[in-house]
């Protein structure tokens, strides 16, 4: 940076900006503008079929207000009273995503570790093996879990034909655990690959140095390998957490009423419930919550990251 004789408006950087212009226009027109539009929309209101374009805090008040009557969702009464329903759902979605993310990352780490340190030959084959299930239709992957866990599903019919149970187990599908488990499966590759990359980048001589200086395997892992792979762990956490909070395919297919997430509510507000302004407000609150959590997370793991950088330097 800061090469002599170049300025932000010099021909050298101008050409860079020109090359970047089309991509920036796309990002601006289709991301920044829609987000601004959502913010504006969230301060308007919906009066049955007409959109009232007057500034109001009504939608935000509705989000933070306590529900006074049971709210129907997908024609089922919803078991939440006296609590702000949107916030309750948002909190539940975040909890489910956090648990799913934690499970994904914990399960993925040993796999990535295995790929980097134990697989000597045919690494490409292992990588392809891991990637392939994730390039099949996301819908069908989630749906496969419905087929596995369902009332007449694979587990139940399998257990019955083996004579282990008499009647199907009903607790398998349509609950938060089914959603969390399905999410943990669907997003595994997004955790393995970043951790794999960061482990692969570790300078092996640092590991040798730790061993030479008397660290045991566990100490070496905790003091060298793990801190140095933290960038990958952080990337994996964010790559899994952010999209899963807003996911709504998984809860729709395997969640039932107990597994409803904030994405379902936002979708129904823009669809059947026909209250786009409220939907926009809920989206904004959800995005703020996610951003806040991400910032908090980065702040918390920040020191670990800088020590990893220190070790590399």
């Amino acid at each position, binding site marked *: *940076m800061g*090469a002599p004789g170049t300025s*932000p408006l010099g021909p050298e*950087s101008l*050409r*860079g900006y*020109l*090359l*970047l212009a089309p*991509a*920036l226009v*796309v*990002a*601006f027109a*289709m*991301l920044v503008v*829609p*987000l601004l*539009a*959502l913010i504006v*929309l969230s301060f308007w209101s919906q009066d049955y079929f007409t*959109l009232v374009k007057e500034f109001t805090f009504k939608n935000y008040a509705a989000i933070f207000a306590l529900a006074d009557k049971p709210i129907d969702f997908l024609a089922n009464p919803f078991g939440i009273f006296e609590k702000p329903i949107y916030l309750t759902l948002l909190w539940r979605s975040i909890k489910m995503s956090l648990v799913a993310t934690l499970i994904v990352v914990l399960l993925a780490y040993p796999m990535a570790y*295995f*790929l980097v340190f*134990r697989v000597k030959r045919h690494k490409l084959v292992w990588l*392809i*093996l891991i*990637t*392939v*299930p994730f*390039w*099949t*239709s*996301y*819908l*069908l*992957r989630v*749906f*496969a879990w419905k*087929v*596995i866990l369902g009332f*007449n*599903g*694979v587990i139940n*019919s*399998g257990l019955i*034909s083996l004579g282990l149970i008499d009647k199907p187990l009903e607790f398998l599908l349509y609950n938060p655990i089914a959603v969390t488990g399905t999410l943990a*499966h669907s997003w595994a590759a997004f955790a393995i690959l970043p951790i794999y990359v960061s482990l692969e980048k570790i300078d092996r001589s640092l590991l040798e140095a730790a061993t030479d200086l008397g660290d045991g395997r566990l100490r070496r892992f905790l003091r060298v390998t793990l801190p140095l792979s933290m960038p990958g762990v952080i990337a994996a956490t964010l790559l899994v957490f*952010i999209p899963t909070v*807003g*996911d709504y*395919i998984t809860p729709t*297919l395997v969640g039932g009423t107990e597994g409803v997430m904030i*994405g379902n509510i*936002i979708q129904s507000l823009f669809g059947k419930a026909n209250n786009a302004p409220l939907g*926009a407000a809920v*989206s904004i609150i*959800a*995005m703020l919550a996610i951003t806040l959590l*991400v910032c908090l997370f980065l702040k918390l793991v920040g020191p670990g990251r800088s020590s990893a950088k220190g070790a590399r330097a």
Partner: protein
Amino acid sequence: MSRLFRFDALFLYAVLYLLFLYAPVLLLPLFSFNDSIYIAFPLKGFTFEWYRQMAENGPLIQALQNSLKLAVTVSIICTALGLLAAKGLTRPYLPGKRLITGLLLLPLVVPVLILGIGLLVIARQIFEIPLSLFTVGAGHVLLCLPFATLVLTSRLEGFDRSLEEASLDLGESAWRTFWRVTVPLALPGIVASLLLCFTISFDEFVLAFFLAGNEATLPMFIFSQLRFPNKLPGVLALGSLILLFSFVAVALSEWLRRQDVQAK
């Protein structure tokens, strides 16, 4: 001794993990050949019936055509824009690079649902554009562009700028230098980017769900079929074919990426 044991434990874990990843996915081909409309054990018998039905399903073929058109167009547009952006980002001097990179990668960290409704709001309530495959395509370009940019930037980062300078010094125009030096060097990255964008667009459901009008894409068609139990075997047959094609595509792109790494 302990070393051998550790290897075995980790190896066992890796195999179990692969099993966990594959079990649900492999159910699709398994039951796509099962002679029963119910997806349950025990298996009944072997049949190609579901594949035959699938081939005769008009709406399915239409949805497949829509998705193919969409994915091809989106992957070409994104790779072209991504290549230009990667050229820009890999320049040695670029003030505000972090900010620009942040903006370009922003779609990766915004939940797709929110991207979808945001685009729906501007399309319907501001510009009053009718929803069609074009609106879906626009959404997919936004979604795929960060991936294309990332893949191509990492490809261009390692390459020797003096090759381009040599070409310019030897009297080639900037345009010919781009085609005769830059593009061939970036080719593995270009192919990987095309494949990645194609796969993302081909599989994308949420944006399509919000932004498509009457023209269904393949994931939308699949979603509409999931509600009807008697349509399921056909969907499984379709899913199995997608699995097969994905495998070929992923293997191809990984192989190309490896070529690329080895070339360095």
